[in-house]
Structures are given as structure tokens and as C-alpha cells.
């Protein structure tokens, strides 16, 4: 399955659209927003330029894992590659695991590149262990999103998949406080936003760099989303299998 993993990672890195959306976009947005608002402090006492680095890290990583799962599964279903896989001595759950691993692998470099941008252009500095821990937390934090990608890939058809995924992605990024701090949104939005996995993943990072204590609620909410998305993925994948 290493061969499959290699292909999944390589074809993302070779895809200009992937590089634009998962790498260039978060870096670009960081430079833009940090340039505009970077001098201030956000409410929780965290400097904006660092808070933004965390948000954009999550933003980029989410697209990395979504694009490596959802649109691909939907497309491969419709062009017949999934059928071809059923003619090979490979188990479908092994393919799924390879896809998830590839998606997660792709998330890492995206986050690192945002970190490097923040460090080089806005002089963001952290203790060495904090850089590593932050990378780890954000990286793991987007894992439920990868499962969401799989669920949508089986739920939609090829033409709709990209649009639907991108729409969901934008919504949970904005509503999760990745663009603007949640505190700046109306209170009903704040309640909604705190439920979202995007917020919870970023909050893991925000709390680490601002020195706040670790909040287990973040982990629990993310796990809950992971379970919900997994059940959805099982349901939709099963539905696809039954219609054969």
C-alpha cells in the first residue's frame, strides 16, 4: 500500500490547483491579514500575528486533507477507477487507510510553510518545543476533517463534490473564527462557532501559544466530530456498495 500512498501524495504535489488552495492561499491570506491587522492584540491577550498564524495553519491543513479525499473519491467513483480497484488484489479498507494517511501527510508541510512565513515576514518567534507541539496539535486537530472529506466523497457525485466541499470548507473556516476572532461575531454565531471542528482545532493552538491551560473539551468535541463523520462515511460508502 506504500505505492498507493506515494501516488496520493505525489499527485497532490503535482496539482497546481492543490498548491494554490492549500499552500499559496493560506500563506497569502496570512500576509494580507497580518499586514493589515498584525500590530494589534486579540482579546485573549494573544498577538494577532500569532493567532493568525495558527488560524491559517488550520485553514491550509483543512483544505489539504479535504482535497485529498472528497473530490478524489467522488471522481474516482464516476470515472471507474474504484471499479478497477475491485479487480486488483487489494482490500478496499487498505485503500481507505492509505487515503487517510496521505491526506494527513499532506497537512503537515502546509502548516510548516505558514509557520515559516510568519517567522520570516512578521518575526513570530516561539520556544522550539512550542513550534513542535503546535505543529503536532494542529496536525492531529484536522484529522476529523479528513474523515468528513471521505464521507462527502461517497455522498456526492463528481461534479458537485468539489463545490460542496469548498462551500463547507469556507463556511466552517469563517464561522469557526479562523478569519476573524469569534468574539467579534454576534453571540449566536459564537455559540455555533464553538461547536465547529475548525474552531476546536485552532483553539488547541491558540491556547498553547498564549500560555493558557490545555482544554480537554477541545479534544472531546473533535473526537465527537470524528465519530459523526465516520458514521456518515460508513453510511454513504455502504449506500454506494448497495447500488451495485
Amino acid at each position: 500500500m506504500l505505492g498507493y500512498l506515494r501516488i496520493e501524495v505525489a499527485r497532490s504535489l503535482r496539482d497546481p490547483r492543490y498548491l494554490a488552495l492549500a499552500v499559496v492561499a493560506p500563506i497569502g491570506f496570512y500576509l494580507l491579514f497580518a499586514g493589515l491587522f498584525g500590530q494589534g492584540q486579540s482579546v485573549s491577550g494573544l498577538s494577532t500575528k500569532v493567532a493568525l498564524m495558527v488560524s491559517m495553519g488550520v485553514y491550509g491543513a483543512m483544505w489539504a486533507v479535504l482535497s485529498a479525499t472528497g473530490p478524489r473519491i467522488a471522481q474516482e467513483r464516476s470515472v471507474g477507477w474504484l471499479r478497477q480497484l475491485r479487480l486488483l488484489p487489494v482490500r478496499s479498507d487498505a485503500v481507505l487507510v492509505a487515503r487517510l494517511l496521505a491526506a494527513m501527510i499532506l497537512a503537515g508541510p502546509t502548516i510548516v510553510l505558514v509557520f515559516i512565513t510568519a517567522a520570516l515576514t512578521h518575526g513570530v518567534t516561539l520556544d522550539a518545543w512550542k513550534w513542535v507541539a503546535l505543529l503536532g496539535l494542529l496536525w492531529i486537530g484536522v484529522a476529523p476533517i479528513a474523515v468528513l472529506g471521505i464521507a462527502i466523497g461517497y455522498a456526492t457525485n463528481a461534479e458537485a463534490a468539489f463545490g460542496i466541499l469548498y462551500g463547507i470548507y469556507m463556511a466552517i473556516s469563517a464561522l469557526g473564527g479562523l478569519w476573524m476572532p469569534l468574539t467579534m461575531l454576534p453571540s449566536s454565531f459564537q455559540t455555533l462557532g464553538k461547536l465547529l471542528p475548525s474552531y476546536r482545532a485552532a483553539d488547541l493552538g491558540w491556547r498553547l501559544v498564549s500560555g493558557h491551560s490545555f482544554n480537554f473539551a477541545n479534544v472531546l468535541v473533535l473526537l465527537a466530530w470524528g465519530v459523526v463523520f465516520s458514521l456518515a462515511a460508513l453510511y454513504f460508502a455502504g449506500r454506494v456498495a448497495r447500488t451495485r
Partner: protein
Amino acid sequence: MAPAVAQHRRLSADIAVSLNGLVKNFGAFCAVDHLSLNIRRGETVALLGPNGAGKTTTLSMLLGLLAPDSGSASVLGMPPATAVRSGRLGAMLQEGRLMPGARVGELLDFVLGLHTPAAMSRKQLVTTAGLVGLERRTVDGLSGGQTQRLRFALSIASDPEILALDEPTAAMDVEARHAFWASMREYAASGRTILFATHYLEEAEMFASRVVIISHGRIVADGTVPELKRSIGYRTLRFQAAEAKTEALAGLPGVTQVTVEHEQITLKTTDADATVRALIASGVAWSEMDVQSATMDDVFMTLVGANTDKH
């Protein structure tokens, strides 16, 4: 009791593919109509039939891609999906794009890596499948014939005992087709079992040791090419003659059909020997006589045509 059981076991050991009473309907359309077929190890079987005859549907059930409405398919004594997963049954389909964005070499590495140890080296696979020079190309940049060769490579990568091919040369030009069958001959020579669906008569005739003709979801003929030709019951007699009279020719013993094209006469006869003797005795000035058994075209048209008339 014991001898029958022993014989059954011996037969089962010989049988590579067993299709029993397969039925598949798509709505009101019956694609496969109680089809039963046993293929022995080492046979090369052509599944010959016009488009829409049910070849692809039958193959899909044989490969475990489609569940039959009734009946069963087993390969090497196990369910098709198990045979595929064990790498003993390989298949090449007609349609379906391959993994978009992947490179040819990467795909080959992937399939070879599914078996430890790999059944063959990448170089061997590339050569056998005719993909030399294409390894760095992405799948999307391949022509139709090249994509077919890549599908072929995927099907043989696990070195399967049984290979099922659905119209393998459909997208290929004449040269590519010849090259493909040359590789297949080598591949088949080592005792592997091959089943291929085709609507090209020449392909069936040239490459298969056994031809199964399918029409409207049923088997209408099953045998070696000489057997099938003989079963049609007539042979074709051709000669040149300047002033032949159609009625006189039709009166020759055994003649069932007379075709006259300028000076070229074609007779269909159920008893070629008698016709020839009568023709010589008749004093007609003939030349360039040629006697042929029925062509596969004749076999096909007769059997498929007859089946079509019934519907």
C-alpha cells in the same frame, strides 16, 4: 457413490471458471439469460458476440463486480471476489479511466507492491505490456491504446492463473493489436487460462482454442473453431466461369445458394464433394476453383441470426 465423488473432484480440480445458470436483468431487459459455462484450466476461450449480447455483463458477474439475480459464478472453486483478492484472477475491462494524476510508473509500482515478493520486476511488466518509454507519463496523457496496455499491465501484475479480458483490443490500431496478441500468446503458453470477450471474429478464430458464441444473453454455440465451422453444415465453393447459368448451378447436388458476380461464382453447398464431381461432369468451363469450409462470418451470421429471429 465413491467413484462419482472421485470423478467430481477430478473435474473440479480441472475447472478454472464455473458459471451456473446466471441471470441478470436490468429492469425489463434481460441481459444474461440462464447462462452456464465451464472453463477448464489452460483453455483459451473467446466469448464472441455482437454488442449488447451480454458479454460484459457475464464477465462482470464472473469477476464479482455484479451480483447475479440468480445463479452463481465461481473461480477456482471460490467466490470471484476471493479469487481476485488472492491475485489468482486478473481482469482487464474495456472502459474506465485510471487514477487521474498518477504516473504510469507509479501505478505499476503500486500493483507490483501488492504482492510480496513481487510477481515480476517493473522492467518485465513494462516490456510485456508494451509500455516502454511511458513510465513518466501521467495517466491522463495516454492515448486510448496506451491506456489499454496499462490496463493490461495492471491485470497481469499479480501473475494470475486466470485472465479475463473484455474487448482487449477495442481501442487499438492494427499494429498495436498484433503486438498485443503476440504478448498474449507468450503469456498463454505457460498454461494460464484466458477468457476474452470480443466481437472480432478474426480475433476469436486466431487466438482462441474454444469459441463460445453469445447472443441475447444466451450461449448459442460452444466448440473449437473447426467444430463450429463443421456444425454449420455447408462449405463454400468458388470458381470463375464465363457463361454460367444460375438455374443450372442451383440444380447441382447439395447447392443451397448461388451468387454470381461478373465471372466469379460462389456456391454454398451441403455436400461439397458431390457438387464438385457434378460440376466437373457438367462440362462447364470453370477455373480457379476454391473450396472452403464455412468462415467464422458464416458461423456467426447463421447462429446469431437464427437466435435473433427467435426474439
